[in-house]
């Protein structure tokens, strides 16, 4: 594409957006800023779920369609532990650990035997997601569960212009940024992270260099699954947990990862930001067509950059 067309399409997309922003700010700055903040919090949650998904795909080439089920599993187990111990922090920890452990079992017990068979692995994860969804429905029933977080995080904070905004959502936003930085640090500054990055680039070479690839795979899968479980408790506190949430977050991670680029954690952050904002703005300004905005973002990215914003070809 020539430079002219790049500018042309860029302007064609940016101009209406700019017009909308100016109009929305003029119309009601409060609604606009609240929506932006809500979009950012949702993006934070989506990033937590999708980063695990993209990490697993990047290294293992495993499209884990049971990722939403891991989210829900972590949430339920976190709820049980939280209910039993009256400690929300313990619930968060158990959500992470239980999902991570389950992911570890899956990788070591099932997916290890299907290495390199992308499609078969994917279908196995579909089967697992059906089974998990039904077992969870069996155990925990169809009702909606709500966490009981400590008092200091459920109040609301007064912000300029926006007014009162739930403190918990700000904490969610902050913790997601912290997790993002921890992930970045882990991948770029530790030995295991280095192995994972090397594995994303060339698995065979990594194995040839004397690294036990299976261990790296298992660790990656456990972390990816654990992040989903963590997001389950954290997101379940912000909203609620109920059957069907697994599909919602699976869709979110799919779209985020398609938009951001497969296998790239930073891409997941970009994608989550785009999708979170698009969804919240859709909800606020065109209520029944909210999902269409998400879809339009995905279509545009696929049309002009099929590999995703930060994805690489091949």
């Amino acid at each position, binding site marked *: 594409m020539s430079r002219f067309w790049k500018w042309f399409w860029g302007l064609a997309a940016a101009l209406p957006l700019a017009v909308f922003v100016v109009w929305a700010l003029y119309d009601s700055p409060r609604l606009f800023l609240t929506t932006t903040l809500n979009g950012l919090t949702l993006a934070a949650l989506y990033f937590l779920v999708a980063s695990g998904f993209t990490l697993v795909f990047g290294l293992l*080439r495993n*499209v884990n*369609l049971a990722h939403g089920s891991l989210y829900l599993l972590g949430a339920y187990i976190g709820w049980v532990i939280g209910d039993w111990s009256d400690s929300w922090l313990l619930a968060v920890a158990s959500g992470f650990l239980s999902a991570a452990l389950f992911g570890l079992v899956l990788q070591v017990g*099932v997916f290890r035997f299907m290495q390199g*068979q*992308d*499609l*078969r692995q*994917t*279908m*196995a994860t*579909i*089967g*697992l997601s*059906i*089974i998990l*969804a*039904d*077992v969870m429905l*069996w155990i925990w029933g169809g009702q909606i569960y709500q966490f009981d977080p400590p008092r200091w995080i459920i109040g609301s904070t007064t912000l300029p212009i926006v007014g009162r905004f739930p403190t918990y959502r700000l904490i969610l936003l902050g913790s997601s940024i912290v997790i993002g930085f921890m992930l970045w640090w882990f991948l770029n500054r530790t030995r295991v992270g280095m192995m994972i990055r090397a594995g994303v680039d060339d698995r065979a070479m990594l194995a040839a260099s004397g690294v036990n690839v299976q261990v790296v795979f298992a660790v990656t899968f456990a972390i990816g699954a654990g992040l989903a479980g963590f997001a389950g408790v954290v997101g379940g506190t912000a909203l609620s947990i109920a059957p069907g949430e697994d*599909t919602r977050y*699976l*869709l979110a991670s*799919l*779209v985020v*990862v*398609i938009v951001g680029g*497969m296998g790239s954690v930073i891409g997941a952050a970009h994608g989550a930001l785009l999708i979170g904002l698009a969804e919240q703005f859709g909800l606020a300004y065109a*209520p*029944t*067509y*909210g*999902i*269409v905005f*998400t*879809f339009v973002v*995905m*279509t545009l990215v*696929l*049309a002009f950059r*099929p*590999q995703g914003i930060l994805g690489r070809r091949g």
Partner: protein
Amino acid sequence: MSAAQWRKAMNFSAGSRDWSGGRATAPVALRPRAGTAATEIRETPLISLLWRRLSLAHIVVLLALLLYPWVATPFFTFQIGAQSLVLGLIALSLTFLAGYGGMLSLAQMTVAGIAGYAIAIFATSGTAEISLGWPWWLAVLVALVIATACSTFIGWLSVRTEGIYTIMITLAIGVAFFYLAQQNYAVFNGFQGFQKVVPPELFGLYWRDPMPFYYLSLFWALAGYLFVSYLICAPFGIALQGVRDNARRMSALGFNPVAHRIAAYAVAGFLAAIGGVLMVWYNGLITPGSVGTSWLINILIIAVLGGMRHPVGPFLGAIVFVLLQNFAVDLVDRERFNLLIGVVFLAIVLFSPDGLLGWWSHLRRRMGPTTGQARLGASATPKSGS
């Protein structure tokens, strides 16, 4: 390079593809190709015997299908027979895409659902504020066109990336459509969807009665089956399989892989759209639940259960699926149907990637003498299984 040359180059003896019990006309369409297999037949007379038995089997199956509603109860005719045929037709579109095009699309039920919604919106339904009340034939025509166009669009979007991405993109599209249908009241009537969407009364018959509806679905299922059987031996189908096996090589030969893939989506979309119209008439209603994630995946389950190596697979899978759905209550708790179908699906994926057809050919290989079929089976195996 012509299709015939290509076939030769790929060592394709399409005639022997029909090993797994297709219906009558498949061998007829393939007869010109039988010349290549003739030498083998002369060497082993058993194969020619097998051939004759197969053709007989086709006629028997066809007769059985035609006579079935006369011996079965209305429940078995409608709930089991017609539903299997309709679901099989939708799954057939997936088999065509995945087995012969190498593109595992999870959005086939979405395409069917779009056709169903279009029927409800353009023809008559219980929600008179939205339905436009057009004559049924016009509504059906428009529904088929819209659904096929949507499928082509989905194809255009998803063929931009390859392999495993297809499943993600199509799943995302399918789930997005589900949420749209659920949230939007102006067009899709939200959570309730549309009730009382019924086929027209024609020739003095109410087409939702078990027997007429069974024959209607049988007609379209057979038409779809024959169409796919023909298409996979036609130049387009052969080229599509070439694209599946090695897209780069095909584009070096002067084919346009992207165009072939998008065309395959259009064809599959048309089949799914027919299935979708029948489905909405079968159910008498369409709700967001009919295009929900579980149904997107159920179509995949049906196709995988039956096996993707032959167009008869999805119909076998649909029969098993519908039987399980209706009689799971005797095996397990009614609420636990999803668990059962999930376990069955996982077992198939883990232990028999080629589904029921895989078992069948495995059995045949063990019972009969070794023939050229094992080799051909290997070369003609769709990638989806592995």
